[in-house]
C-alpha cells in the first residue's frame, strides 16, 4: 500500500511539473511578444535599445531554462508575480477568491454527482426504454445548452419571476448558511449540470454491468424486486467507479466556473480569469491555469487513493 501511495504521489508530482512546463511554454515560447506576455506592456513604439532594457529588467535575456526555473521556484513558494493589470500580487488575489470558488465547486460537485447517479440509476432500471431515453435526453440537455444561456434562464425564472433566489453573489457558508445556500443554488446547479451527463453515463453502464453478476441473479431468483436489488446490492458495488469519474470531472467543473461565476457574479477565481482575459493579464491567467491544474491533480490523486483503499479487489503493486 505504502509503495502504491508513494508511486501515485510521485506520478502526480511529475504531472504538476509537466503542467508548469506547458504553461510556461505557452506564455513564453509561442509566437507573440514575450514582453507583452510577461508584463502586459507592448513594445510597439519602443526602439531596439528600450526593448533590450525592458527585456533585461524582466530577466528575459537569460536562457529559457533559467527563466523557467526562476518562475517555477517562485511559483512553488506561492509567488506568481504581480498582475499586469494593477501591479498587485497575483497569489494574494487568488487566495482572496479561493473560498468563493471552492464553496461553489464543492456544492456543484455534490449536486452534479447526485443528479448524475440518480439519472443513471433510473436509466439502468429500464435500459433502452422510453424512460431511459428521456433521462438521457434530460442529462444531455444540461450540456447541450451553453451554460450562459442556462444561467440566464434560471435567473429569469427564479430571480425575476418567482423572487426565490438572489443572483448568486457570494456569502460565506459559515457566516450565513441560509443566504449562502440561496446564493449557491443556481450557480451550483448550472455547474453541476455540466458534469451530471458523464456521471449518469458511467452510473448507467456500471450498474448494467453489475446487474448481470451472479449474485444479482440470485437476488432476483429469490424474488426481490428490481428496485430493491439496485438500491441494496448493485448500486453499492457500482458506486465506486462513479466516484472516480466524478473526480475526473474536476477539470471540467473548474473551467465551467469561468462562465458560471461571471453570470452569477461570484467573486471567485473563474471570474478573475475573465478579468485577466479581457485585460490581457497574462501573469494572472498563467497562475490561474496552474492553480486549476494542481487542484485537479490533487483531487484525482485523492480519489485514486481513496478508491484503492475502499475497494478490496484492487491490489497495490
Amino acid at each position, binding site marked *: 500500500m505504502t509503495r502504491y501511495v508513494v508511486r501515485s504521489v510521485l*506520478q502526480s508530482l*511529475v*504531472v504538476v511539473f*509537466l*503542467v508548469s512546463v*506547458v*504553461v510556461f511554454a*505557452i*506564455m513564453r515560447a*509561442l*509566437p*507573440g511578444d514575450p514582453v507583452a*506576455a510577461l508584463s502586459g506592456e507592448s513594445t510597439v513604439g519602443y526602439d531596439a535599445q528600450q526593448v533590450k532594457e525592458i527585456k533585461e529588467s524582466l530577466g528575459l535575456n537569460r536562457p529559457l531554462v533559467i527563466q523557467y526555473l526562476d518562475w517555477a521556484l517562485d511559483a512553488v513558494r506561492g509567488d506568481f508575480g504581480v498582475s499586469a493589470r494593477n501591479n498587485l500580487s497575483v497569489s494574494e488575489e487568488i487566495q482572496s477568491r479561493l473560498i468563493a470558488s471552492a464553496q461553489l465547486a464543492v456544492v456543484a460537485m455534490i449536486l452534479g454527482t447526485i443528479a448524475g447517479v440518480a439519472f443513471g440509476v433510473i436509466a439502468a432500471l429500464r*435500459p*433502452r426504454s422510453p424512460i431511459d*431515453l428521456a433521462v*438521457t*435526453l434530460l442529462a*444531455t*440537455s444540461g*450540456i*447541450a*445548452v*451553453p*451554460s*450562459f*444561456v442556462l444561467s*440566464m434562464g434560471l435567473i429569469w425564472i427564479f430571480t425575476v419571476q418567482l423572487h426565490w433566489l438572489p443572483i448568486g453573489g457570494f456569502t460565506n457558508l459559515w457566516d450565513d448558511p441560509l443566504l449562502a445556500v440561496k446564493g449557491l443554488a443556481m450557480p451550483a446547479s448550472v455547474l453541476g449540470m455540466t458534469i451530471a*451527463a458523464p456521471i449518469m*453515463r458511467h452510473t448507467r*453502464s456500471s450498474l*448494467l*454491468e453489475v*446487474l*448481470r453478476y451472479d449474485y444479482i441473479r440470485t437476488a432476483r431468483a429469490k424474488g426481490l424486486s428490481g428496485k430493491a436489488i439496485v438500491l441494496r446490492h448493485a448500486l453499492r458495488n457500482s458506486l465506486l467507479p462513479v466516484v472516480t469519474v466524478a473526480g*475526473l470531472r474536476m*477539470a*471540467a467543473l*473548474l*473551467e*465551467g466556473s*469561468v*462562465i458560471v461565476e461571471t453570470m452569477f457574479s461570484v467573486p471567485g477565481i473563474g471570474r478573475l*480569469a*475573465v478579468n485577466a*482575459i*479581457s485585460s*490581457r493579464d497574462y501573469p494572472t*491567467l*498563467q497562475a*490561474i*491555469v496552474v492553480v*486549476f*491544474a*494542481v487542484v*485537479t*491533480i490533487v483531487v*484525482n490523486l485523492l480519489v485514486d487513493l481513496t478508491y484503492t483503499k475502499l475497494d478490496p479487489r484492487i491490489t497495490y503493486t
Partner: protein
Amino acid sequence: MTEQSIPALPVPRRAARNSIGRQTFALARRYPVTAGAALVLLAFCVVAILAPMLAPYGPTEANGLESLAGPSRDHFFGTDRFGRDVFSRVLFGTRISLGVGFVAVIIAGTIGIPLGLVGGYFGGLVDALLMRITDTFMAIPGLLLALTLVLVLEPSFFTVALALGIAAFPGYARVMRSRVLALRSADFVLAAHALGASNMRVMFRHILPNATAPMIVVASLSMGGAVLAEAGLSFLGVGVRPPTATWGAMLKDSFTLIYTTPTLMLYPGAAIFVLILALNLFGDGVRDILDPRQRGS
C-alpha cells in the same frame, strides 16, 4: 524487418462486408434513436456543404436599416442587430461550427490516437511517459487552455479549432490506450506477432482498425464539446472574429438582445442544442451497440 510480403490476417471487421447495407438497416431498426441521431448529423453535414446554395443572403451581408426585423418571407428567421439575415447566418454558421468541431476532432485524434496506441502497446516506461503527458493536458482545464492559446495565437477559425483540438486530445489517448491494452493479448494480435509482423504493422494494421468504434464514440462526444467550447470562447470574447457567422458568436450576440428580441437566441441556440444532442445520442448509441456486455440486458 521484411514482413511486408506477409498477407495481413483476416481481421474480424472485414467479416461481413457484402451485406453491409442490410446490416445497417437491421441495426437502425434495433437502435432507432441512434439511427435518428445519425440522420440528423448527416443533415447538418449536408447543410454545411450546401450552405451557399441554400442561404438566400451572404453571411455578412448587412442591410443596416433592417435591424432586428421579425421573421418574414424575406427573412425566415428575421434579421440581427446589424440587419443581417439570421437564417443565412445559421446556415453558414453550420459550416464554421461543424468545421471547428471537425478540425478539432482531427487534431485531437492525430495527437491522441498515436499517443494511446504507442503507450498501450509498448507499456513500461514509454507508456508511463506518454500517459503523464496525457494527464498533464487532462489536468489543465480545456477551456482555459484553449483560450490562452487563442489569445497568444490571435483568434481565427484555425486557431480556435487547433486550441480546442489540443485541449481534447487526452480523451482520445486514454480510450485508445485502454482499447490497446484489451486487444494486446487478443488472438489475432498474437497470431500476427507469431507470423513475424513488426510492431508498427501490428499497431496500425491490426489493433488500430479494431479500435475505430470506440474512437467514433470519443470523437462524437468531443465534437459536441468543441462546438460548446466555441460558444464559450465567443461568450468570453475570444472566439472566431466578427463578422464571421458562428453559432457561438450568434448566440452571444443575441444573448445581449435578450430583453429586446429574445426569440433571436432560439435559432443558434436550437442549432447547437440539436447538434450536441445528436452527437451525444449517436456516441452513446454506438457505445451500446459495441459493448456486448450491455447488449440486450
